[in-house]
């Protein structure tokens, strides 16, 4: 028997520069606040790109304490665990006493993984050689610590693993979890992503890549689709959703926040960093096909919109290629001017913003879009949140490696 279950969202958790819980995060988005500041984690003297959307350490430590969570000394893992806590709590699934397990999958994305642990291991190895290397370096540094720590912490006994596909990681993780539930493999999953790029080494790599904004004004520096954009601005944090079959949510009598109804993916198969409109358009078409929809059904596109010259031009072309004449009508926004490019977490946090936007019929604005680039000829949302006509949205994520992933979300209705 072919299973074709509806997949709904029943909990969301956010750790971002705009808020360490879903409600603060959303209020700040709607208020048009920007989470981008001058980076404070390390000395920026030799760095060209000085802005980022950092999590405030003091506030995050306080959240960990309030949620009775113990740090594992890795920012990526700690962000993920804290966001998972909120998502589970909101979905009335919190089980931190460890007395019994729950069969729930944990499918998370990360672009970089446990880079703070790797950096610490490398520092002590460089300073003291093999005797300086912590004996638990392996379980601390492995990328799947991000999902394993959550599985252990909350006793979730379904499959847990990490998907690594650069900036599409979290979108792909949500898509994979969506398919598992849709196909009846599992009833419930935690899905999303986490990344923390602000250490001098990993961030330095980005600084030197030539894709980062050098704009000196933090809140103006991330300008997706604007003609004056000069590159992306990174952010850190985590976004995690509780996904479950409609039957499971109804059985538990839990509030349904939204629905995932399609997922498509593809590879450019051309260049490691340069995106391809044709490759991206395939992922968009695959997502529509998976949802059983056409471009006419889409009411909003939450773009990848990194604010690099190459991405925004390319994404504009791929939207036009896949959506045809409907492109003239569909409002498009990028959330990255609000909380930066959260890399392997970006797809999750932007899916959450899309889901809440659909739920409340307020789609997030483009903060810094003063003069749309004529090369990005789309129907853009302005600086205020907007209402949309059709309760279906598309979330695009495109990553280095030629990875493309697209989700379709719908406002929940019986």
């Amino acid at each position, binding site marked *: 028997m072919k299973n074709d279950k509806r997949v709904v969202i029943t909990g969301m958790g956010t750790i971002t520069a705009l808020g360490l819980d879903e409600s603060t995060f959303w209020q700040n988005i709607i208020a048009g606040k920007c989470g981008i500041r001058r980076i404070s984690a390390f000395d920026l003297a030799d760095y060209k790109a000085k802005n980022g959307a950092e999590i405030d350490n003091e506030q995050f430590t306080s959240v960990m304490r309030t949620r*009775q969570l*113990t740090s*594992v*000394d890795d920012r990526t893992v700690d962000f993920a665990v804290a966001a998972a806590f909120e998502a589970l709590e909101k979905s009335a699934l919190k089980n931190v006493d460890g007395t019994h397990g729950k069969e729930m999958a944990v499918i998370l994305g990360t672009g970089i993984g446990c880079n703070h642990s790797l950096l610490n291991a490398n520092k002590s190895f460089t300073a003291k050689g093999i*005797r*300086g290397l*912590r*004996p*638990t370096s392996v*379980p601390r540094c492995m990328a799947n610590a991000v999902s394993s720590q959550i599985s252990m912490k909350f006793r979730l006994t379904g499959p847990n693993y990490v998907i690594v596909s650069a900036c599409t990681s979290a979108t792909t993780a949500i898509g994979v979890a969506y398919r598992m539930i849709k196909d009846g493999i599992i009833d419930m999953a935690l899905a999303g992503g986490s990344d923390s790029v602000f250490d001098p080494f990993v961030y330095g790599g980005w600084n030197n890549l030539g894709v980062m904004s050098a704009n000196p004004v933090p809140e103006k520096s991330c300008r997706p689709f604007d003609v004056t954009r000069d590159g992306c601005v990174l952010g850190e944090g985590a976004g995690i959703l509780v996904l479950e079959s409609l039957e499971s949510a109804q059985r538990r009598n839990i509030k349904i926040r939204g629905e995932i109804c399609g997922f498509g993916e593809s590879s450019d198969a051309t260049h490691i960093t340069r995106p391809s409109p044709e490759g991206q358009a395939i992922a968009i078409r695959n997502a529509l096909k998976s949802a059983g929809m056409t471009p006419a059904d889409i009411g909003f596109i939450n773009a990848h919109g990194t604010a690099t010259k190459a991405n925004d031009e390319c994404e504009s072309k791929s939207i036009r290629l896949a959506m045809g004449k409907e492109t003239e009508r569909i409002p498009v926004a990028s959330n990255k001017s609000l909380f930066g490019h959260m890399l392997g977490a970006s797809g999750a946090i932007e899916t959450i913003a899309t889901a809440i936007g659909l739920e409340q019929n307020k789609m997030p604005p483009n903060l810094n879009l003063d003069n749309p680039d004529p090369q990005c000829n789309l129907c853009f949302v302005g600086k205020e949140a907007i209402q949309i006509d059709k309760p279906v949205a598309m979330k695009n994520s495109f990553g280095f490696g030629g990875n493309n992933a697209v989700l379709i979300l719908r406002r929940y209705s019986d």
Partner: protein
Amino acid sequence: MTQLQIIEKLRTMMRKSSQAQVDWDTVTADSSIASLGFDSLSILDLVYDIQQEFGFEFEAEELVGVKTVGQLADFLEKKQK
């Protein structure tokens, strides 16, 4: 370093590497190490932290028979001499 000073240092290190929710202010020389959230893996971290802090090396096997915080402090007190 006196045994009390060693215990104070251990408390700080254990708080860092333990994965359990423990009221560290109530930890004394008689507290069992196993009750403080250490298993065969996390004890390796604690041994590492102790070696880095105290500046001498020992094998984890030397701790066989060491069950309480006080016994660990005794062991370290003897080692540092």
